[in-house]
């Protein structure tokens, strides 16, 4: 006979027992042919390759589309042919002829010169955020059909407005804006003359390793194997799940519910380092942490103060104590992994030298200044260290913390005094950063172009001329040499103290091989990824 008490205890335990049974059936290891990735997907706005301009979207796009050429992660001075088999420039360096290799779209149709010409024309005509990467060669909506032409099924010519360095052109074409879409499929889905933009934001029509199966914003992205594409491994699908919390990402990785965790912070990476079931893939990416000194402030406009700030900072101390796993000390305006990047580290903490420079500037007693910085870690910790460092040379820093976009909006309005922020490079060519940091033609409030230098009211015509000369140099070796000299000049004579370069880490389960991180997000690729 069951007593009333036992009956009640049994009743109370019933939900728990049945939950155990539920949980038992809920578990299943990720299938061998599906790669599951935990990643923060919350700032992705479009999967149209001629529109998307954010890191995560860029990565997805580069796994679904091919370009004429792609950047070489192992040798940044070269590009790798993809849709293009070969290329040549005419004597004047204005007409560039590309012969195409045999590639196939996910629909099964061959990639033709017409598709290539259409894709590049489409990028120019739509004129979305990344279009400037190729319209800087003089292409406009009005002239692009005459200047980018399919000569025959396998030949495309590009005619630039001015004589152009072929390496500059190729590096720019390696960006996602140079992605090749299938004309027939895209135009079949065009509405209101949008060249298929609305459709391509959530669908794919490329010849890359994968094609888009589904994108559920803030939930997941599923990529499906392109049966006609270049992927040769054992994966049939890649499912990227939106997992915001890095701690949850680590737990899921440790339990085997995901194969790769993409957004672990230093805290989780310390734990992952000691886990024998996890391997870490690290790559220095094209994201720099720097201090900008606004030149509209009379104290910050003095070149001695620029140098004093650079000599006062304890780069190594901050890196070792605050950001040992996520950043490395880096002082050039070009990120490591780019063509011609200078890896010199001329500045290290020298308080006496910095004080002497302050005295030379007539600011022996220092001054007060506000430093705007991002609220997300590690910026508050870095800002406090900077405050302490600069305090030693008399610069009394008041910290102003705000959400990233708030700081950026303030900088774009030139309302900051000093700002600690990050800068991500747009495309794989030294001109990308050189242009925004060195070339500021019009420093007025209503300037047509407002590069990063403009935001801090920095205008140096000599530096700008050097940046333009490097950009236009046709001999690739000389071009690199000019950029190296420019970087050293910039380190010495600019109001920007570049401090660190970000290191990105992908934590993978043992058995996942071949996933590659690129210096730009579009170099993050599943093309060689396999799962044991």
């Amino acid at each position, binding site marked *: 006979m069951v007593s009333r008490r036992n009956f009640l205890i049994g009743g109370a335990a019933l939900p728990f027992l049945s*939950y155990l049974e*539920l*949980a*038992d*059936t*809920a*578990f*299943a290891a*990720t*299938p061998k042919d*599906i790669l*599951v990735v935990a990643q923060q997907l*919350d*700032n992705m*706005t*479009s999967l149209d390759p001629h529109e998307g*301009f*954010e890191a995560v979207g860029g990565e997805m796009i580069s796994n679904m589309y091919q370009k004429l050429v792609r950047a070489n992660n192992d040798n940044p001075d070269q590009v790798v042919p993809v849709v293009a088999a070969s290329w040549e420039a005419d004597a004047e360096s204005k007409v560039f002829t590309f012969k195409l290799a045999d590639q196939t779209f996910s629909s099964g149709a061959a990639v033709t010169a017409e598709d290539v010409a259409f894709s590049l024309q489409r990028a120019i005509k739509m*004129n*979305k*955020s990344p*279009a*400037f990467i190729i319209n800087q060669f003089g292409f406009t909506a009005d002239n692009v059909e005459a200047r980018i032409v399919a000569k025959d099924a396998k030949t495309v010519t590009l005619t630039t407005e001015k004589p152009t360095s072929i390496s500059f052109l190729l590096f720019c074409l390696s960006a996602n804006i140079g992605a090749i879409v299938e004309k027939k499929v895209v135009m079949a889905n065009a509405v209101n003359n949008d060249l298929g933009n*609305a459709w391509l*934001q*959530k669908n794919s029509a490329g010849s890359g390793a994968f094609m888009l*199966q*589904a994108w*559920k*914003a*803030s*939930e*997941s992205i599923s990529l499906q194997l392109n049966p006609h594409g270049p992927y040769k491994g054992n994966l049939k699908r890649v499912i990227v*799940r*939106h*997992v*915001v*919390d890095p*701690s*949850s990402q680590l*737990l*899921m990785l*440790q*339990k085997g*519910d995901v194969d790769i965790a993409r957004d672990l912070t230093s805290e989780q990476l310390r734990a992952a380092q000691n886990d024998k079931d996890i391997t870490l893939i690290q790559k220095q990416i094209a994201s720099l942490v720097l201090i900008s000194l606004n030149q509209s402030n009379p104290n910050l406009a003095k070149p001695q103060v620029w140098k004093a700030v650079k000599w006062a900072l304890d780069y190594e101390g901050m890196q070792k104590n605050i950001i040992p796993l996520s950043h490395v000390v880096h002082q050039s305006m070009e990120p490591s992994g780019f063509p011609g990047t200078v890896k010199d580290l001329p500045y290290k903490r020298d308080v006496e030298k910095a004080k002497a420079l302050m005295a030379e500037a007539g600011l022996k007693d220092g001054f007060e200044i506000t430093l705007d910085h991002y609220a997300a870690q590690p910026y508050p910790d870095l800002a406090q260290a900077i405050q302490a460092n600069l305090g030693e040379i008399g610069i009394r820093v008041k910290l102003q913390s*705000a*959400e990233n*976009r*708030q700081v*950026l*909006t*303030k900088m*774009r309005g030139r309302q900051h005094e000093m700002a600690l922020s990050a800068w*991500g490079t*747009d495309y794989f060519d030294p001109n990308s950063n050189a242009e*925004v940091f060195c070339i500021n033609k019009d420093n007025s409030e209503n*300037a*047509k*172009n*407002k590069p990063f230098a403009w935001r801090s009211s920095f205008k140096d015509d000599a530096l700008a001329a050097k940046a333009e000369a490097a950009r236009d140099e046709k001999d690739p070796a000389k071009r690199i040499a000019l950029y190296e000299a420019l970087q050293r000049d910039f380190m010495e004579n600019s109001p920007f103290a570049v401090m660190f370069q970000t290191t990105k880490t992908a934590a993978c389960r043992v058995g996942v091989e071949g996933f590659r991180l690129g210096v730009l997000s579009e170099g993050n690729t599943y093309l060689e990824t396999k799962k044991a």
Partner: protein
Amino acid sequence: MKNRLKSFSAMLSSVILTLFGLTVLTFLIGRVMPVDPVIAAVGDNAPEDVILRVRAEMGLDQPIPVQFLHYLSQLLHGDFGMSVLTKNPVATDIARFFPATFELATAALLLATLVGIPLGVWAAVRQGSFTDQAIRVLCLAGHSVPVFMLSMISLLIFYSALGIAPGPGRQDIIYDGMIPTVTGLMSVDTLLAGDLDAFRDALAHMAQPVIILAYFSMAYIARMTRAFMIDALKGEYVITARAKGLSGLKVVWSHAFPTVAVQLITVLALTYAGLLEGAVVTETVFSWPGIGQYLTTSLMNADMNPVIGSTLLVGLIYVGLNLLADILYRLLDPRVQ
């Protein structure tokens, strides 16, 4: 009849006024906050000509009153605008994200009510005893320990260490894309699809966030129930019932509880509204794609149409549940009638 009509029209005007006020406030906050929504749409590195064009396309180059009138006219036509982030109409997004929160909130409220009310009654009946103290500590912990900490501890113990609960997310990866969306409620859709394994998987994934949210809500419900019940037990009608020789259970549940139940309607309505508002932290830790996560992601990216749309929805929920509580109050409490 005339009085009822008057009261109904007053109620309706108050609802409309509240929603209008909410719209004005949210819209203005969105326009004066120190973040440029255009940058959110095109990225920080976009060239100036693209920024200017998109600003005009988004209507942000117009004076704020013109923008507001335009937005209001859109709203009156049932158009909440487009989300920059998801490239979907906000109404479509809300229809996708809200069911996930609704499912979580409803299950949590049911569990919290089923446990919280008996616990509160028990504590009141045994006022001052060890049982009362134990329940008080349990409730205090539920209300004072941060939800994110409870969520992480729960994941660490039940998912990571013991391995008896599934990890974050609404379903296991093997069901990805397998269940057609009909209601948006995973537990219902899996049943409609006739897939019992997927149904069990959905319930298993719900268990942890539901229990944590229910614990948090239960603590409040139990504390309020106890307080109401202690008052009720002092009532003369309860003493009379006891004097008549009725059993303790009958006195508590048949005589004292009905008066408590009326008061609890407001407590339950507000608890439910709070849960439906979106348990942002729980949704974040458990990767639950609900309205709370949608709202915060949009806010962080200065995507204002979804922020206004979601805020209006939350406002509507509060107003609706308050209205429901008022109506139920009138129906159940003869003094109000």
